[in-house]
């Protein structure tokens, strides 16, 4: 009897127990879209500190910087889309509470992850040339092309590899071995995060058996393969309040409440934390359900 690949199911707390102070953690998704928020919330509850966070940022970044978890932030933008400026990130930047920031062009960010995924020290790119990305990050160097492409030996940005200790990503479905599918319109860069990282933990809406992954879904949507994955966690609504279509859309009402609290007084934020972030993931989801019921009542 064949034994098959190993079962990598874990709990949220078991994933966070694998993280260490000072680690470089990549967070998948994009802005306010399909973010591994249940894992982010668990980091908020932990004692972890001095993290380097690498993210095309949304509320994941906002929450972590507000909680003082971040020593260094690598980003190209931080946005909630329907609310363009992330208030917790904005506040932290303006107060100077993030000790080190690396703001990149969003394509450079992909190239940096690609370099890491391909185990290269850098990859060349035009993006960044002439911009203040190179002024504000003087450690990012240029490289001269060894080839004359008709315009001489071009000087290009040597985008440094964005190597990650750990990648955290959230997808729609996975099997217990770590094969995972996205069911929405955009894969984002979760496979690239996984390959740029030493270890990757995948949270999903639902764990299904392997056959279930492709029974009603084209195989091309298996984005993350098990060889890239160290652990799988089932976290229904684990991307809340970011979008995780077709399972659910972004919770705009909740996002509005989050942004209002984040840009309000310290008491406003403390009340938000107390109501939503003081318990575990089950308590969070229950508090969100109560919030949603309240909103629906108010609408009637």
């Amino acid at each position, binding site marked *: 009897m064949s034994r098959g690949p190993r079962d990598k199911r874990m709990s949220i707390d078991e994933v966070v127990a694998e993280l260490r102070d000072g680690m470089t953690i990549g967070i998948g998704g994009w802005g306010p879209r399909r973010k591994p928020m249940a894992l982010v919330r668990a980091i908020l509850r932990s004692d972890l500190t001095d993290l380097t966070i690498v993210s095309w940022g949304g509320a994941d970044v906002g929450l972590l910087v507000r909680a003082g978890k971040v020593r260094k932030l690598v980003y190209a933008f931080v946005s909630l889309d329907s609310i363009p400026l992330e208030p917790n990130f904005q506040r932290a930047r303006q*107060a100077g509470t993030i000790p080190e920031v690396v703001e990149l062009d969003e394509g450079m960010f992909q190239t940096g992850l690609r370099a890491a995924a391909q185990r290269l020290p850098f990859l060349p790119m035009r993006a*960044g*040339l002439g911009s203040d990305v190179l002024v504000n990050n003087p450690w990012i160097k240029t490289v001269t092309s060894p080839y004359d492409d008709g315009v001489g030996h071009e000087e290009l940005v040597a985008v440094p590899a964005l190597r990650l200790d750990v990648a955290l990503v959230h997808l729609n479905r996975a099997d217990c071995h770590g094969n995972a599918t996205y069911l929405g319109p955009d894969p984002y860069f979760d496979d690239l995060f996984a390959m740029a990282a030493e270890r990757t933990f995948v949270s999903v809406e639902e764990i299904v058996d392997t056959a279930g992954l492709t029974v009603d879904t084209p195989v091309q949507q298996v984005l993350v393969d098990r060889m890239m994955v160290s652990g799988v966690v089932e976290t229904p609504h684990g991307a809340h309040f970011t979008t995780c279509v077709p399972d659910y859309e972004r919770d705009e009402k909740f996002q509005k409440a989050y942004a209002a609290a984040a840009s309000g007084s310290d008491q406003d934020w403390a009340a938000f934390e107390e109501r939503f972030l003081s318990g575990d993931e089950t308590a969070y989801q229950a508090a969100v359900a109560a919030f949603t019921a309240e909103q629906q009542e108010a609408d009637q």
Partner: protein
Amino acid sequence: MSDSPTHDYTRADVCASAIADAFKDDGEIFASPMGMLPMLGVRLAKLTSNPDLAISDGESLFLAGVPPLFAKAGPHEVVEGWIPFRKVFDVIAYGKRHVMMGATQVDRDGNQNISAIGDFAQPTRQLLGSRGAPGNTANNRTSYWVPKHSARVFVDQVDVVTGVGPKRAAAAGPGASRFNDIHRVVSNLGVFDVNGPDHTLRLLSVHPGVTTDEVQAATGFDLGDLTDVPVTREPTAEELVIIREVLDPRSLRHREVPEPAEESTR
């Protein structure tokens, strides 16, 4: 349909047709508008001057049709391709793209800032971040849209250079300047390119009802001799019908560009 000008238009309509004109000679490329008026202008161009434009739903689909502003792409929508973020970056490098971005600041040299106001180390106002501006300006045609022209937006020098203007690109070498192509800056007052002296901003036209003095007063640097600056063309009757009946029947454009109180063109 007659193309004869009519005075039954708003400033927002003028902006939409001026934005459409920025895309009319682009040929078969991916038109990427950021924000409401750019989206309206691009879709107007696709329905009039440049049907070859490829447009997306702003998420991950190339749309064959031209839906109204902010219409949810439903199953009725014909899709002609897939453009998730990873492919957007490929197309940027490939170059067949024209993006119209916003600009919290744009300066004399055509540099744009959407990153931060003040000192980057600890800004007085943190904005979005660089987003794709450095890559856009190094690779594909880039224009900017400014809904509220003021001396706080049109500054002598931006605080943080995210989008790179032609002078900075030239200084960074051919790798940076080879595909740098800052095409138009369209505001609620007028239209600029970067073909002024030493590749600085040049006022190409003022919108109907706007004077060059007004534009200069709302600009934080000297625009030079403005005596011969023409007036932006009026939207055609065809364009007005398309804007009102097809693309923006809810009149959302007037939230972004309200009709000026005094020099009303209605």
